[in-house]
């Protein structure tokens, strides 16, 4: 199976047909940043971009990514840098255990691409598919607001 992940070509062999894109990323390509809290499409912790659209990587068969472009949390910023969304999650205290964070970062990144100044109800709707068990979401809302402001100032 061939695809591009975070701008780099990837090729993996012997993909079993039941393997998800999430499994391929995590176990075969050495990119465990995308998380696996449910593997049933319910938690959003595995959210990645597939050709620019956020998807639950656990619900995409690895083979479906053939010749397509995948971006994961590891690809949101260059190696030593933080994307404003990542910086905002860090600064706002929106990260506790952090298991929900990679998926939320991709979902927030996508939201701000579509709607640079979202209202609170818009943020809530956009992130409704991403479960977090630690934060009660208050600081995640703060982080998204801060990220929107930071991006606007860029």
């Amino acid at each position, binding site marked *: 199976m061939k695809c591009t992940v975070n701008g780099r070509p990837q090729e993996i062999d012997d993909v079993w047909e039941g393997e998800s894109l999430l499994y391929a990323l995590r176990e075969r390509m050495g990119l*465990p*940043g*995308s998380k696996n809290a449910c*593997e049933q499409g319910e*938690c959003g912790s595995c959210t990645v971009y597939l050709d620019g659209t956020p998807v639950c990587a656990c619900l995409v068969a690895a083979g479906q990514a053939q010749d397509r472009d995948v971006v994961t949390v590891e690809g949101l910023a260059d190696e030593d840098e933080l994307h404003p969304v990542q910086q905002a*999650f860090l600064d706002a205290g929106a990260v506790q255990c952090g298991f929900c964070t990679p998926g939320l970062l991709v979902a927030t990144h996508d939201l701000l691409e579509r709607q640079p100044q979202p209202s609170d109800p818009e943020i809530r709707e956009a992130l409704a598919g991403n479960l977090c068990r630690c*934060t009660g979401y208050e600081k995640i*809302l703060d982080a998204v607001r801060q990220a929107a402001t930071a991006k606007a100032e860029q």
Partner: protein
Amino acid sequence: MSTPTRTDQNLGTDIAGGVGESPLRPDGTLKVKGEFAYSSDLWLTGMLWGATLRSPHPSARIRAIDITEAVRTDGVYAVLTHDDVPGDNVYGLEHADQPVLAADVIRYQGEPVAIVAADHPETARRAVAKIVVDYDVSEPLVDPERAAFDVDAPALHAGGNVLRHLPIRKGDPDATADVVVRGEYEVGMQDQAFLGPESGLAVPADDGGVDLYIATQWLHVDQKQLCRVLGMPANKVRLSLAGVGGAFGAREDLSMQAHACLLALHTGRPVKMMYSREESFFGHVHRHPAKMRYEHGATRDGKLVYVKAQIILDGGAYASSTPAVVANAATLGVGPYKVRNVAIDCYGVYTNNPPCGAMRGFGAVQAAFGYESQMDKLATELGMDPVEVRRRNALHEGATMPTGQVVDSAAPVAELLERLKAMPLPSGPEASDADGYDLRLLPGGVSNTTHGEGVRRGVGYAIGIKNVCFSEGFDDYSTARVTLKVTGGDAVATVHTAAAEVGQGLVTVQQQITRTELGVEQVVIQPADTGVGSGGSTSASRQTYVTGGAVKAACEQVRARVLRQASKVLDLPASQLRLHAGKIVSADETVVGAVVDILGDETITETVTWRHRPTHPLDDNGQGNAHVQYAFAAHRAVVDVDVELGLVRVVQLDCTQDVGKAMNPDAVVGQIHGGSAQGLGLAVMEEIQVSGGVVRNPSFTDYLIPTILDMPPMRVDVLELADPNAPYGLRGVGEPPTISSTPAIVAAIRHAMGADLTRVPVQPHHITGTP
């Protein structure tokens, strides 16, 4: 060497990021980059994958296990059963009563029977499916009351089905009162639902031992149990903490630890195990379901005269932490109120339901739903404001608990309620704007179930009490090793403990304490492992208190050595020297030296085992100084209820909490947010549905936890009334907000609909009254 006359006299600003500030967490950058290594991310060349065969029956005997086909599967390296356990086939936190792999009796659905290691996780799962177990299935015992009190009920364990009965007797057992309210309440089985699945990597070592990288709450209690199972001494069973994706109590018991070690030692290969979400529902203990009968007697002016209660906690198949859950529910059973006459009987019971144990606020959560429901009922009976009736009975410093223990530090129960009441209320219920209703702000949301008709607003209050740290005479301690040396021209402190960071921010607090105590900016937190003494459990809201206390004490010893050395070098009495921002300062505030110069090439290391003040067992009447510290939080919930459809939207959830000292104010508020959210889940959505001992909803499709749409805005007001017995005056923070959130929301729903609710989670049919 600097001399006093040549020393830079600039005292410098205080070291940033100390106690009371909110520095960023040291693992935060890795977490937002996706580079933090959780236990489920671990990988080694040549590693195998483990999988578990679990019993589909809640009650059965095993006649035979046939592994022939499983062993023959290509890619399978080991298939193990109880026969392959080299040590004792039993584990448990306090009472070891749970088999590692079932030998003959099955006591709950999901009990592990066999384990497999294979070169691909799917191969392992397929091999598991090929194991044939011949079960002699029997009728499960699932009613905890029957288990406890019916003499004809089968005994699930040798000692009978009552694992613990704790009576509390205070004052006159026959006290009577003018006003009496009675109620029966139920709490459903809640799941911790951490997001990071149970997982770990066991690596066989050259010395015949094993190294286990694991997400847990207490490395040393895991190690102790593993040594017994593996038949190995502690120096052969070494544990390191891998990244933990939340815990909330669910990682206090063993899950896959012993299984992974057995497979690794058997195959000689590293073995990774990682549960799916479905398996996770069977792989850890849950919050005890409770049945509670309460009777409150009061005077006409609302003063409590007596409280009688019977509390039955369903512990399920194995003991886990049930005895401690019983202790909390019983000793905190009347809540944060002064009551002269108390008679409580609390029972922890074995059944064939899923095992229950630790979850945030355990014991206190269940009881609070009972006693706070009763306080509201009493207020209604008296025609009194619910806050006023609580205020009139509010516990305070110097008051006596039902156990006879005198509350010897701040207990601002009345103040927390008053501050809550003084907060502004949100407007609403949601009125139409120019374009009509905003569905997103109505119960049912964009399902478009109402445009406001049938929607009623309700407001409810509740307050809870929690013991902090381990109780009843438990030897509760933590160990910290602090090292100070010069690296790259700067003084750098290193802190090594075995205490588990599970997301709460313990690593940040350890850095803060070290910065404050040693006046150095750079503090490295070493990975937690069993190479240093036990840190105790990351539970009971105890880590900042106990491991924080240990780090503080170790820093104090390091500091004393630095100052003794400075005293020698500078020829000044050590008692007149102090450390400030990397400088040695004398009594007259003169900078007399620099820490880097005093240290030179020397490394100063101190290891301290630190204990909080002792607690004591309870006597036959439940009397005794069993707890170290009490903590309090209160909530006010505002809800909109569609009384026709039974749908609830929590509009606002405000919290006041006394934390003694906000060590890291941002992290404190984060704990309060998260704890409140778990209480909301228990109030209106979260329950593991068990019927006939079988779990009906082991997935995030069917077990719902709050999303960002379910959570309302929260206003948080933090009080800091120091506890003189605790390091920095701090009070444990993590659990109290989970306790009062649930009853406040239920009170608000009752207020909106004008009728009683006696069970959580509240379901739509409870509100509509339809069957």
